[in-house]
C-alpha cells in the first residue's frame, strides 16, 4: 500500500460530552476504520476527549473566499442580530 494513495481525512473531536465536535486537523488513512485509529493515536494522546468523527476530506464542501463579500460582509452592519444586548447570567457556561 503506497501512502501516496491514501486519502486525506478531517478529524473532529468532542472535548467533553454536551459540547460539539471541533475540527482538530487531518491525516492520511486507507479507510474509515484505520482513520479512526490513526485519529485516536495522533490526536487524543493527551485526554483531548471522548468522541472522534472522521470525514474524508473530499466530502467536505467549502465556500469560495471570492464570495466572502456577498456571503458574509452583508451581515456586518446588522448588529441587532447579535445577542450582545443581553446580560448573560454567570451560571451559563459554554456560550
Amino acid at each position, binding site marked *: *500500500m503506497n*501512502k501516496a494513495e*491514501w486519502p486525506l481525512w478531517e478529524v473532529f473531536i468532542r472535548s467533553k460530552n454536551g459540547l460539539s465536535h471541533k475540527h482538530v486537523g487531518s*491525516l*492520511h*488513512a*486507507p*479507510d474509515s*476504520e*484505520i482513520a479512526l*485509529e*490513526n485519529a*485516536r*493515536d*495522533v490526536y487524543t*494522546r493527551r485526554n483531548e476527549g471522548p468522541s472522534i468523527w472522521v470525514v474524508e476530506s473530499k466530502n467536505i464542501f467549502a465556500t469560495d473566499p471570492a464570495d466572502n463579500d456577498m456571503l458574509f460582509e452583508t451581515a456586518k452592519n446588522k448588529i441587532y442580530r447579535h445577542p450582545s444586548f443581553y446580560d448573560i447570567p454567570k451560571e451559563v457556561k459554554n456560550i
Partner: protein
Amino acid sequence: MQNKQHLYNLLLHLADNDLILGQRLSEWCGHGPALEQDIALSNIALDLIGQAEMWFQYAQSLGINDKNQDQLAFARNEWEYKNVLLVEYPNTDFGYTIVRQFFYDIFHKLILTELKESADTQIAAIAAKSIKEVDYHLKFSSEWLIRLGDGTELSHQKIQTAVNELCDFANELFLPTESESIMAKAGIGYELEPLRSVWIDEVQNILKIATIDAPDKEGHQKGGKNGIHSEYFGHLLSEMQFLQRAYPNLSW
C-alpha cells in the same frame, strides 16, 4: 524456593515481555511507514514500557534483593532476562512487526484476563489497568494484519512469510516455568496449557479473514523464559542499556 521468590520470578517474566517488546517497537520511532503508524507504534511501545514499570515496581517492593526498578530494567545481564523469544525478534519489516505484535497481543490479553482474577490483589489491579491498553493493541494489530494479508499481492506475501517464520516462536508462549506452575496452583498466576488452544483458535480466525494460511507446524524455538536468548538479544540490550551502563543511576 519460597513462594515469594516464585512470585518475583513471575513478575520479572511479565515485566520483561513488556519491556523488550516495548524496546523493539520504539526502534520504529522516526522510521514508521507513515507518520500515523509511527505514532501508533510509539504509543504501543510506551503502553508496554509503562506496564513493565508496574510489574517491576511490584517486584522491587517484595524486597527479595536491593535492585530498584531501573536496575531491574537496565542493569541485568542477558541470561537474567526471562522474556519469551518472540518479543526480542527483530522488527525486520512492518509485516513482521505486525505479525509479532498480533501473536503477542492475543497471548497478552489471555494472560491478563486470567491475572485480573488473581488472588494477589496487586497483580489483579495491574492486569485490570493494562488490559484496556492491550484491547487496543490487539485491535490495531489485527486490523493491519487483515488489511495487509488481504491487500496487494506483495503485502499478502510479506505477511505470509512473517507468519511462517514467527509461528516457530508461538510454542514457547505456552511452556510454563516452575514459577509459573507454582503461582498458578496458588491461584496467583495462570495455567498456560488451557490457553494454547484458545490462542490457536483466535489466531486462526483472524488469519482466515486475512486470507493467510495458518502453518501446520509445532514451533520449536524456546529458551528465552529460562534466560537462553537469541543472538539478537545482546545487541538489543547494548542499545537499551547503554546510558545506564555508561552513567549508572542517571535520572532525568
